[in-house]
């Protein structure tokens, strides 16, 4: 295996250009000071209650199941030009994915053209026949997409970004992107003064704009809500956070009801109509009349109202058909089919175990490959060949042979590493990146994403449920004086201007008073 690409260092001593300023700063910090900052960060996260619940786990003191996601103080830094390319690739990819979902539930041109096998789609558990022929606002299905990106080393020492996975159902983690940035600015303001770091804090604004964009066309001032499974859900903090930041209601299924073809929420002033539901509940639980009858997380009759176009669900029902791991290999072809463009972002080469030749290859190379369940998530149900014992491999082999179409396999990518605080100083740990792409009137995103880090030495699994941590993600702005690229946000300049203005007027009124 090629050695991993190190995001900060090129070779043993050289520091990459975009990390030089940070490296200099880090060299000047006393280790005790950094340790104190880490503790401070943890205390603040506890107080703010930025915690997640682990199923079946208990805290050390038995007081509950709330855990902190470990936060690392060394940021992942992305140079300006790399981000520009990645952004263009993400916009392209998500656009194609939305076209694909629309196609699947309408004319199915891509199936007729034989580019994606019909069986893969129509017999897929993620295909929702209920959505056939249903028209959704702007023809958009995945309004909020989380695209997982990794970087692997090439033999020549450079690194290539690959899309590892598309998350088009209810991708989470954006609150950590925002809170990590807030924390870094609080702990190390001097770093932000000495670097041109693109801001991300306007994400909730873009999100609200996107949700309003996809409201039913007949509604002028749409009422947007966030639907959460409740406070014991592992991502509850994020649901509450986003609702608060957008200034919309955070509702649970029990707060909603359907009457005369519309959805209402129960308020202290009587029923109020709801137009857009940013739902953080899976399809299966949305409507007990249409899906799982025992679900109490949804609202009875919701699907009917939705199909009539009287409420928007965000994301739409049935997006799972496009982020299924068995569909993933076809995404580059979708880009070509729908947009007539060459894909900017690459896929990881993938073996479909349902295919006989692929299966034979996979079985012969289990020790080198990563094998994943087609519908798996959260790092569960996967085999990392090089890290597995003989017994584990054999056990997995039996499962694989028993149900091959349930699995895909990929070469074990040496995910790039980033220096990370560990028990003994600083050491490289593997990372990935999840940028969030918003699709409304336009496709937009904030510069950055959530960087997850596998804290265990050598581990490639970054999921928080498996002991992963997070880092702040910096996208560096272009050097001042150079042309800004269209589509990037000129945030900082505008912000500082309005700040100085209001300070000025304060001063004035003080003098007058």
């Amino acid at each position, binding site marked *: 295996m090629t050695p991993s690409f190190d995001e900060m260092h090129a070779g043993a001593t050289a520091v990459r250009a975009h990390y030089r300023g940070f490296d200099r700063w880090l060299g000047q910090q006393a280790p005790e000071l950094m340790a104190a900052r880490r503790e401070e960060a943890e205390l603040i996260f506890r107080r703010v209650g930025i915690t997640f619940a682990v199923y079946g786990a208990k805290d050390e003191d038995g007081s509950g199941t709330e855990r902190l996601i470990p936060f690392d103080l060394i940021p992942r830094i992305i140079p300006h030009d790399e981000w520009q390319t990645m952004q263009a690739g993400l916009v392209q990819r998500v656009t194609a994915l939305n076209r694909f979902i629309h196609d699947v539930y309408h004319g199915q041109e891509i199936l007729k053209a034989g580019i994606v096998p019909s069986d893969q789609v129509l017999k897929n558990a993620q295909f929702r026949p209920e959505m056939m022929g249903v028209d959704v606002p702007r023809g958009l299905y995945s309004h909020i997409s989380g695209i997982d990106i990794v970087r692997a080393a090439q033999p020549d020492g450079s690194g290539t970004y690959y899309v590892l996975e598309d998350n088009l159902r209810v991708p989470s983690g954006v609150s950590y992107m925002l809170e990590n940035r807030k924390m870094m600015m609080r702990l190390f303001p001097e770093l932000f003064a000495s670097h041109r770091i693109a801001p991300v804090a306007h994400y909730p604004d873009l999100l609200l704009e996107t949700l309003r964009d996809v409201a039913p066309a007949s509604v002028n001032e749409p009422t947007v809500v966030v639907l959460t499974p409740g*406070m014991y859900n592992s991502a509850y903090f994020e649901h*509450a956070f986003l*609702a608060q930041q957008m200034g919309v209601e955070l509702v649970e299924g*029990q707060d909603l009801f359907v009457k005369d073809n519309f959805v209402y929420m129960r308020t202290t002033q009587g029923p109020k109509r709801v137009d857009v539901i940013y739902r953080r509940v899976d399809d299966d639980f949305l409507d007990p009349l249409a899906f799982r009858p025992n679900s109490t997380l949804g609202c009875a009759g919701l699907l009917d109202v939705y199909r009539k176009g009287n409420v928007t669900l965000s994301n739409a029902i049935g997006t799972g058909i496009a982020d299924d791991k068995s569909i993933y290999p076809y995404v580059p072809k979708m880009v070509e089919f729908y947009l007539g463009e060459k894909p900017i972002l690459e896929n990881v080469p993938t073996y479909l175990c349902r295919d006989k030749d692929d299966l034979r290859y996979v079985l012969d190379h289990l020790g080198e490959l990563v094998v994943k369940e087609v519908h798996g998530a959260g790092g569960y149900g996967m085999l990392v060949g090089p890290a597995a014992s003989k017994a584990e491999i054999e056990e997995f082999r039996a499962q694989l042979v028993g149900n091959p179409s349930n699995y895909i396999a990929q070469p074990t990518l040496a995910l790039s590493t980033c220096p990370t605080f560990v028990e003994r100083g600083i050491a490289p740990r593997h990372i990935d990146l999840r940028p969030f792409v918003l699709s409304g009137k336009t496709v937009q995103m904030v510069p950055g994403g959530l960087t997850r880090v596998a804290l265990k030495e050598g581990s490639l699994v970054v999921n928080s449920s498996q002991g992963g941590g997070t880092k702040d993600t910096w996208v560096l702005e272009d050097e001042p004086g150079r042309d800004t690229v269209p589509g990037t946000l000129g945030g900082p300049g505008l912000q500082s201007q309005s700040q100085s203005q209001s300070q000025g007027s304060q001063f004035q009124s003080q003098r007058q008073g």
Partner: protein
Amino acid sequence: MLSRTADHLFWMARYMERAENTARMLDVNYQTSLLPQSADRAEQGWQGVLGISELTQAFQKKHQDVDARSVMHFMVRDGQNLSSIVSCLSAARENARAVRGTLTTELWETTNQTWLEFNRMLRDNSFERDPAALFEWVKFRSHLSRGVTVGTMLQDEALHFIRIGTFLERADNTARLLDVKFHALAGDYFGAWGHDDAPEVDFYHWSAILRSVSGFEIYRRVYRNVIRPDKVAELLILRPDMPRSLAACMNELFANLGHVANEQSSETQRRAGRLRSDLQFGRIDEILATGLHAFLTQFLDRVNDIGAGISRDFLVPA
């Protein structure tokens, strides 16, 4: 505002207020227990604490003797006792967490911090080392959370439901405290004790009641006189300027209820207004003539009924 949100806010405030009142009551009993007194008298005090919260039976299932240690343990750190301080702070925090987006950051963090710190204090046995300091701490965290509420929350429905919860709970708690403290002495008190013929209760008994509602200094300021039971009752029931009196609580409750009124709530408002008027125009000699216990029992029923009305009209509509 979502009905469920209003419900959580209402209960968040009630539980915080309840934690404070429990701390106040325990503190006063603890301080009293440090004075020289008979064992009977001491036990009577601790039984009163259990009686106020209607917990005598639940307590007896777990403990044999009614003494300072076991009652304080039961009322402070027993998580199975839903009225214990730890249960109240936990419930306040859980309710806050359910609507954290509706609270200001300051209010949520204050509530969360109170819960985190309190658990830490229980773990390292700070409570056993110095119960009085812990009671004082709980009181001040409640002051803080009230101050943060009033000082940072937008003055909209959310604030009104918080205030409604606070004053409904406080009215209930003050009434119970009065009832138990008077009832313990005389069955029902009809205001018959003159200056000298009060039963063998003394200055310390009455001053303890007053202190538990931060009313000792206020009593002196208002009456400039020795402490007399009828005046204590008057202060805690009828004085609208005494922040923990029944009259003050009902004034606040009625005002806040007016701000959130909806199409179904007129009957609940009428009842709250009626109760408020009874206090506003009531006289202590009339109340005592019908019997204090009878009056307070009826008051608690009416407060309870208003609470049910608020629930039905706003918080858990059909």
